């Protein structure tokens, strides 16, 4: 069982959306908390409280599911998973029936097959749209089941016209309620996984629909654009706002210089769209495919991830210096410093904890830093008119689409990033261009940004930003190689998928201040003996736990630096990543990301030669200097929960 189901008892969903938790100890007459049951003639022993669905899966018996998702509480509402249990007069939903006594189950009797077929027929009778013109054609769970159960006509009819207006108000998420089958996975995702709670069922009977507060459009509610609902929608009722037509138009325009930056997570996942196993890295093949598609230059977002580490790390050092040495109370109150790379998290704190915005690093996210540099530094270096540059960002994220459209993100004098593409959308473009990506030759990124470091790559996994920052801070402060402290530079305490993590590191000795930071601090003596405390969390439900802990004065309030990622697992579990998602899939992507880090020649941001070039040639007043501040830093908006 996954974490989220274990945590079921504490999450916000009502108990109508939960499965019975059965204690394996207290039941009498069952040795060791085990119970045996017979499924389709096969006997199996399972721990008490195991659901029929879980038992079937261990026997490799396929039970169809729609409202079930292993990341979420068990709702038991679509009823497609019904099975026959002997001695019970009705069929039982396999997903929500915990086995507590020996039972005999039949999974494909006439009654069961009829019921499932009827349920599909009923869903189709209420599902407007044609599969050909649907973005989930080929990946739709309803379509798959219709095929599996041999649906060859619409037994109970099929709507001939749309009854809901498509909500395209959000830069990130498009809601098409004509395609909704009311499985409520999005509701449970939003409320339990993310603790945002934008979506809820309203009305009764056949008027039931998924709605926002007062049925407002998505742009006008507290949606953080994380897109986790998209990743868990079985149909195309929720999808990302897709700019591929505009990107193709830019590519086809000979007047435009179209560049694309690619984040680390899509590379670890895009293979899934080409039938490869999750966790098959595609970095170098994808570079070739992107050039084949017609992009004029392919950059590595990891370059600005490295830059983020320098800027955000410097900001942290400055905050610590002002607080610890200069006794600046106001700055001391802005500790712990919060990361700002995840635009879902940024919008979450803007809505839900606006009084804590001064904790958030002013450093832009890597995507936006790159956007500002491409239309300034790169344009100048290559002598290209920045107005002719179309800057595209390949991201695992739907919130990045919103981020690049934030009105303040125009520091280059132009819209810093023109389009945010998700992993899924790029895969579609590559398919459309007839490119067999896995078979492409490998090729490198384009200069002047070159190949980034392993530190940039691990930004994709929860804990990665913190690990990169620590590698950097340790070396800059102590002058000693991080490998001397952590084997192979793996900082294990901040890795892994636990919802919240704490770690600390004491500086026993300090070295000389490196050239890059000499204008900011005179020496490191004040860091000697200091214990740096850091925290990591992923998924905004966990972010809420951390924020509430800080408010209550708990251990997270003692931290100096906390990494927040809006999505479960970090960016690799982002709302723009291939569907489906599960903890196993996210773990496979994480393995690919850490492997790419270990195979990198340079694994620390401050050693990236291209970064040093940028500070030398362009951001000449150094990290957190005036130019850096103009281009690489930003401010936030106190949005609050109440939107007029």
């Amino acid at each position, binding site marked *: 069982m996954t974490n989220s189901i274990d945590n079921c008892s504490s999450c916000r969903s009502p108990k109508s959306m939960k499965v019975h938790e059965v204690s394996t100890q207290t039941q009498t007459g069952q040795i060791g908390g085990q119970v045996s049951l017979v499924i389709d003639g096969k006997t199996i022993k399972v721990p008490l409280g195991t659901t029929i669905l879980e038992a079937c899966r261990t026997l490799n018996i396929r039970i169809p599911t729609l409202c079930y998702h292993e990341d979420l509480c068990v709702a038991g509402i679509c009823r497609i998973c019904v099975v026959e249990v002997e001695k019970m007069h009705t069929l039982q939903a396999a997903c929500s029936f915990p086995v507590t006594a020996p039972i005999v189950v039949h999974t494909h009797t006439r009654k069961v097959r009829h019921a499932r077929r009827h349920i599909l027929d*009923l869903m189709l009778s209420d599902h407007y749209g044609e599969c050909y013109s649907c973005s989930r054609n080929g990946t739709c769970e309803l379509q798959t089941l219709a095929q599996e159960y041999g649906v060859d006509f619409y037994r109970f009819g099929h709507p001939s016209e749309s009854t809901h207006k498509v909500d395209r108000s959000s830069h990130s998420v498009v809601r098409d309620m004509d395609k909704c089958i009311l499985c409520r996975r999005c509701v449970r995702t939003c409320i339990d996984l993310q603790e945002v709670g934008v979506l809820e069922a309203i009305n009764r009977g056949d008027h039931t629909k998924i709605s926002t507060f007062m049925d407002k459009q998505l742009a006008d509610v507290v949606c953080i654009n994380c897109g986790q609902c998209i990743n868990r929608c079985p149909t195309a009722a929720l999808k990302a706002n897709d700019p591929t037509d505009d990107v193709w138009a830019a590519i086809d325009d000979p007047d435009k210089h179209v560049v694309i930056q690619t984040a680390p997570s899509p590379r670890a996942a895009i293979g899934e769209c080409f039938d490869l196993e999750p966790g098959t890295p595609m970095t170098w093949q994808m570079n070739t495919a992107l050039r084949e598609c017609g992009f004029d230059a392919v950059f590595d977002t990891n370059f600005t991830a490295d830059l983020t580490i320098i800027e955000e790390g410097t900001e942290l050092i400055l905050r610590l210096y002002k607080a610890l040495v200069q006794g600046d109370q106001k700055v001391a109150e802005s500790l712990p410093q919060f990361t700002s790379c995840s635009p879902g998290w940024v919008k979450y704190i803007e809505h839900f904890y606006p009084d804590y915005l001064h904790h958030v690093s002013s450093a832009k996210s890597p995507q936006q830093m790159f956007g500002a540099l491409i239309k300034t530094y790169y344009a100048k270096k290559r002598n290209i008119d920045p107005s002719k540059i179309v800057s595209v960002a390949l991201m695992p994220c739907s919130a990045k689409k919103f981020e690049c459209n934030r009105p303040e993100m125009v520091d280059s004098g132009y819209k810093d990033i023109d389009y945010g593409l998700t992993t899924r959308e790029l895969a579609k473009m590559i398919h459309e261009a007839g490119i067999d990506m896995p078979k492409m030759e490998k090729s490198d990124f384009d200069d002047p940004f070159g190949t980034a470091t392993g530190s940039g790559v691990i930004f994709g996994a929860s804990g990665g930003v913190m690990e990169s920052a620590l590698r950097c801070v340790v070396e800059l402060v102590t002058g000693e190689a991080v490998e001397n402290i952590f084997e192979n530079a793996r900082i294990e305490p901040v890795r892994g998928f636990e919802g919240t993590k704490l770690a600390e590191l004491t500086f026993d000795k300090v070295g000389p201040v490196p050239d890059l930071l000499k204008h900011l601090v005179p020496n490191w003596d004040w860091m000697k003996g200091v214990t740096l405390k850091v925290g990591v969390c992923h998924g905004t439900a966990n972010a809420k736990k951390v924020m509430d802990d800080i408010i209550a004065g708990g251990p997270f309030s003692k931290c100096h630096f906390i990494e927040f990622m809006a999505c479960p697992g970090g960016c690799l579990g982002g709302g723009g990543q291939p569907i489906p998602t599960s903890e196993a899939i996210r773990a496979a992507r994480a393995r690919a990301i850490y492997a790419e880090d270990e195979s990198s020649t340079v694994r620390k941001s401050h050693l990236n030669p291209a970064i040093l070039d940028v500070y030398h040639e362009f951001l000449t007043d150094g990290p957190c200097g005036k130019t850096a501040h103009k281009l690489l830093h930003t401010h936030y908006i106190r949005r609050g929960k109440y939107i007029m």
Partner: protein
Amino acid sequence: MKAMHQGDLTFSSIDPNAGLKRAIQMKRIDIIGEISRSKMRGRGGAGFPTGTKWNLAAAAVAPKKYIVCNADEGEPGTFKDRVILQEFADLVFAGMTIAGKAINALEGIVYLRAEYTYLLSHLEAVLDQRRKAGLLGSSIGGDESFSFDITIRMGSGAYICGEETALIESMEGFRGEPRNRPPYPVDTGFMKHPTVVNNVETFAWAACIIARGADWFNAVGTDKSTGYKLFSISGDVQRPGVYEFPMGIMVSDLLKEVGGSDAKAVQIGGASGHCVPASEFSRTCAFEDMSTGGSVIVFGPLRDMLDIAENFLEFFVEESCGQCTPCRIGNVKLLEGVRMLKEGTCSMTYLKELLSLGETMQLASKCGLGQSSPNAFLSIVRHFKPEIMGRVNL
């Protein structure tokens, strides 16, 4: 609105607090034993043995337990709980207090349907009097170990909240929607605490049983359906109203009593019950034959059975909570089918599909509402085929 009943009710002849006074002297196990021996089954319609339910809740190990009185009387054609609450509220509260002692619960909650808001001040007044009389609160009847109090929560007008888990969900502040079962409320109920949810009438009878003894109760009725039952009689009869009959009464006898002997059909058990044609009026209102919460709707010779089916299905389309697929969309399809039948455009093949769909709804819906919503349609089609088929659109 004045509630009315026909003839004398047993409730009028019993001192409402006699049972409670006796229960104060009894051991918990003996109270449950008495109820179990009476063989009373739930008066709300589902007919779960009350003694068993109390026993399960009593056996549950928990620091806190609840007694909930289901006063969300929403089944079409049912209005006997209204009469009980108006005229015999003391008896109901005494029954709840007895149940509280039996399972060791300190709190009771009445979930009152929104449409009965006009009863709220009356019920609050009765509760106040009982507190003043030492029949509620701490040290009830001078017994220091016996505390129990009752509060009233208002429903908001959803039929589904009469389903016990939806009722609990609603009391917790959520959308009224049924939970997955198991767990049952006796194990995990209101705020996760073991909870006994009984119908208004069940509590009233429980108080009577403790007052008069199990043998008094199970001497009446049939072997499997003991005691008296209140019936809400409406429709094409001369004397509609609330009646008390022994369980197991034959439909024809009941019709004779209320002046509806020329009926063409009778709906037993409300919208979710069964439609019985005249040829089957020898059937009985008993758990072993036709289980009922007491709603009897009588249809005279001039009634159009398709109008009746349409009316019931309109009700279910409106009142389905919208959670599970078979109930949410299935009822819409059945309603469309009935309208097609009325217009004479429903083929035999499609009608067969609808009957089969009805069976799926009975088998695969999440809760009792969905499982019973096709009953009326299915029984009308079964018993009145010549009447409903072959209509032409005029």
